């Protein structure tokens, strides 16, 4: 049972970044723009968030406060970076996959350049400890308390709050309805007076914010507050796209998909703690590959019947009827 607790405790901080970034991708694609640049935006958000932490880590601010402010910094950074994608795809009607790839390549190069020149290293290392041993009161609840409220990070709780907000936003608000219309049938939306360009900017900007926060949460929960220009976010931005597809662009399903992948990854790194797996003596590399392979299996099984937002990836042009 301890193993189960351990796995869940470790899985959540990994799953939450995936979840948030996948939700970001969802908002973007639901509005009609494919966001391949999630990987780059994550890293951008992580970098600035970590930079902030680095600058305040000596002060008297508590770790959780720093985390919250850092989250805002990361979100704003992600938003700014995503504007490059918005501008290119929406105003210039450029090819969204190419632009996204360019943005992904740009960030590690910038981080490495600045880190090498100013910090003499490949990235940022902080010595902030965000780890929470126990949340008072809640951790006493039998079973659930141990699973969710012990040995965790604030990121997990924030992540689920954001999920709830996302669900409400997408399905219960006027904004959500209009956003979805733009991704399915932009001409229909236009004909009832909705500004498709503005909606798409909103969708991409949301993805920027969420990916930025997701990146920062990745740095906090997975790489211990550090950001490396070389390893970046280890493909999480792309895994998030797979999570989004697996979740069929629906928030709750995306959450399950994200947790599934996080579980696999956690399993991969916890082999030594699980006797029966350890005894199998399989090289760790195979476990590392597992999430990527699992992604392929999932996609193979679901792609035939997948139902993406109908108008995604097509630049919106008013003059075509």
């Amino acid at each position, binding site marked *: 049972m301890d193993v189960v607790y351990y796995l869940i405790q470790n899985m959540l901080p990994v799953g939450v970044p995936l979840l948030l970034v996948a939700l970001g991708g969802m908002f973007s694609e639901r509005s009609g723009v494919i966001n391949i640049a999630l990987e780059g935006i994550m890293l951008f958000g992580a970098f600035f968030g970590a930079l902030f932490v680095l600058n305040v880590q000596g002060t008297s601010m508590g770790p959780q406060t720093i985390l919250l402010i850092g989250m805002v910094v990361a979100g704003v950074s992600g938003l700014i970076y995503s504007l490059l994608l918005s501008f290119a795809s929406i105003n210039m009607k450029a090819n969204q996959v190419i632009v996204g790839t360019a943005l992904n390549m740009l960030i590690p190069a910038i981080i490495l350049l600045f880190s090498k020149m100013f910090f003499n290293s490949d990235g940022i290392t902080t010595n902030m400890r965000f780890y929470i041993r126990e949340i008072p009161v809640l951790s006493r609840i039998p079973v659930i308390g141990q699973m969710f409220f012990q040995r965790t990070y604030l990121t997990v709780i924030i992540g689920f709050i954001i999920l709830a907000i996302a669900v409400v936003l997408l399905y219960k608000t*006027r904004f959500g309805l*209009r956003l979805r219309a733009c991704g399915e049938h932009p001409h229909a939306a236009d004909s009832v007076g909705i500004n498709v360009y503005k909606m798409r900017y909103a969708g991409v900007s949301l993805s920027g914010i969420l990916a930025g926060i997701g990146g920062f949460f990745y740095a906090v929960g997975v790489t211990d507050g550090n950001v490396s220009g070389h390893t970046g976010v280890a493909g999480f931005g792309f895994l998030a796209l797979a999570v989004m597809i697996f979740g069929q662009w629906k928030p709750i399903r995306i959450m399950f998909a994200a947790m599934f992948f996080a579980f696999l990854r956690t399993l991969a790194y916890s082999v030594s703690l699980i006797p029966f797996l350890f005894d199998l003596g399989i090289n760790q590399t195979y476990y590392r590959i597992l999430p990527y392979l699992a992604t392929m299996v999932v996609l193979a099984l679901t792609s035939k019947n997948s139902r993406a937002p109908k108008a995604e990836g097509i630049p919106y042009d008013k003059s075509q009827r």
Partner: protein
Amino acid sequence: MENYIVEMLNITKEFPGIIANDNITLKLKKGEIHALLGENGAGKSTLMSVLFGLYQAEKGEIRKNGKKVTINNPNDANALGIGMVHQHFKLVEVFTVLENIILGVEPVKNGFLEMEQSKDKIMELSEQYGLKISPDSLIEDISVGMQQRVEILKMLYRDNEILIFDEPTAVLTPQEIKELLQIMKDLAAEGKSILFITHKLNEIMEVADRCTVLRKGKYIGTVDVEKTTKEELSRMMVGRDVSFSVEKEENKPGDVILSIKNMTVASKTHKNNAVKDVSFDVRAGEIVCLAGIDGNGQSEFVYGLTGLEKLVSGEITLRGKDISKASIRERSASGMSHIPEDRHKHGLVLDYKLEENLILQRYWQPKFQKNQFIKFDEMRNYAEELIERFDIRSSQGPTTMTRSMSGGNQQKAIIAREIDKEHELLVAVQPTRGLDVGAIEYIHSQLIASRDAGKAVLLVSLELDEVMNVSDRILVIYEGEIVGELDPKETTTQELGLYMAGAKRNTEKETGHAGE
């Protein structure tokens, strides 16, 4: 002095390379049904799009109730009480009827959707005007007729007073057309003013009060429908006297070329099959027309016949050879030519040169390649020959980018290619869609020439005139089944319409195999 509720004065609208509306004036009276008539491409839809705010005119002025107004987007139009039902519905398929109607004017409380009130208002409107809908159904699940009613309710919900209908009857059965025309009369009686774009003269004669005619972007005139005739309207529309019939000789059908037995094709959107157990033959020297309203399985039938889709069951025999499971290329090589429904999607590679498109079905033959290397001279010569014979016009001849050619010439290129290649069976699907009268006449003559040369021609069409005038034998398809076989010389348009609407059908024994 007349009281006009809307006036469009001296409107000029240009697109790159074309003046779609050239100094057009249109005046709409309150409570009237005003038809806007013209051929495809005359500029009717463009003019209405200007009124609705989808486009902005370069020159001209719009007035409502005598006062000048600017309409920069559909919101402005809406605020002035102008609404539009588009030819291609602007409905979000995965949303419900209710969501589609309120989209853009959603009732909210603090940003959250509050749908109940709207639902009541919509059901009231639905009752009042006899527009039956089910508010919680998804658009992708409802019939085309109901989808159109949703579009109409969109306008009524917004209290629009001026209603624009863009080619509304193109997708309806004759029965649904009758209902729609009645709805329009009721709306006008309630004081709504209606603009009605069409190229169908019958409908104009039946419901319109006045009619404005456009031709090639220019304003031709406005007439009182009571005082005019179909002939006069069509003369204004086309610019000359149009014969409504096609010149052709009696045909003498020969051997059976194509034999379809129990063909069944699945549907991509519904659980039921799109084509259900269809059987019929086509002989050499005859034009058989598969007639039906769009969406009754014709497209799927053609896909199954040509190989673009697999059959669920059934047999296709071409000149005695079973091609039910053959690849597309095998079918083509066995003597099947296909003029596809969608010339841009299937018929041509628009980014290829004209000559490259003309060998699209034959580039692999020894005539055009050796050891997999293309024989460019042969390709060039062949293209020049076809251009000459079929009078295909283009800016640079064989090296023209196909994308830059006009629709009529693109279609001619496809026809040239498909007719010139060796074939026994010619499958022509909506070959005259979107083309002007001259091109239509030309294409019909080519189909007849093919038939006279002893080929079997299968024509799929939904234009009643074309069906009646061009074919030797009509097979009506309704909901995936052949429901009737008609002789165009004996039947009437009304009867054909009834069959197409599923209101009448022959029994099994009578269909398909006449002449055996």
